[in-house]
């Protein structure tokens, strides 16, 4: 009987489209559709990469095709998140990590600007109140600033 190491194994890859794996081609094709919709005012869309059966090789191929864009944002909230615009404008590669640095979500967002980066009006109002208190500004007189508290 042959030993395990003597059994020949040949890995057959799925049919490729334009040199890309089937999974990568499918994601790119979906991105094209999403991007076309968003470009004409449609709703932003997201692909959860962790839900797709993609090999590390496919992931690298996808990143290579999309390239790297001009904008990168880092978010520090319950761990670090990276939001990188790809070379395709409006397509963002988003990685969320927990406090231990483990990847907890990996998404491709098709949007002008990832919504998680936006400040909410509620938070801005809170910020204004906090600054007002810090400056010693009277609530009844928004224009008055107590400069003595600034020094």
């Amino acid at each position, binding site marked *: 009987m042959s030993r395990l190491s003597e059994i020949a194994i040949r890995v057959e890859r799925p049919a490729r489209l334009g040199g890309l794996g089937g999974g990568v081609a499918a994601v790119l094709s979906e991105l094209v559709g999403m991007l076309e919709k968003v470009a004409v005012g449609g709703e932003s869309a*997201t692909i959860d990469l*962790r839900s797709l059966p993609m090999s590390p090789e496919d992931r690298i191929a996808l990143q290579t095709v999309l390239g790297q864009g001009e904008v990168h944002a880092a978010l520090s*909230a319950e*761990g670090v998140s990276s939001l990188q615009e790809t070379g395709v404008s409006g397509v963002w590669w988003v990685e*969320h990590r*927990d406090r231990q640095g483990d990847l907890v979500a990996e*998404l491709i967002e098709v949007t002008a600007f990832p*919504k998680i980066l936006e400040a909410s009006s509620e*938070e801005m109002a809170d910020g204004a109140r906090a600054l007002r208190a810090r400056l010693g500004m009277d609530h009844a007189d928004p224009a008055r600033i107590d400069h003595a508290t600034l020094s």
Partner: protein
Amino acid sequence: MQRSVDDLAVGDMLRRHGVSRRGFIKYCTAAASAMALPPWMGPAMAGQLRNAARPSVIYLSFQECTGCFESFTRSFAPTMESLIFNVISLDYDDTLMAAAGDAAESALARAMHDNLANMCSLSTARCRPAREGAIARRGERAPSTPCARPPKAPPRSFV
């Protein structure tokens, strides 16, 4: 005017505990991903939960060894008092609540009436209808409703 703890939404509570809106969105996004839900569900969950009131919880103990409850009382993260005062609204638990007898039954009825569509019914152990419900009888409930289950079962029930 300072709002009482009972009036605060989940988002306010989280903010008080140092969890930012973005941190919460991120947590919900990760949870949605882990549960294989559509990616838009994460931010949607975060948006709904942030403005939601603390969920009303009715904790019913039945034929059990009380091990679940003993574990719950020894929780450190979060502590039990933090959980029942800050995260949920524990409206009925016959072990923890100060009320007993008719007052406890009234509290249960009131919690069910006020939150029927939105409450969580948390039950530990089996609820056996055998022996006309004598094994798991609660208050003066008739044998036909031996577990003192609400007349209409709540939409969410965790056992």
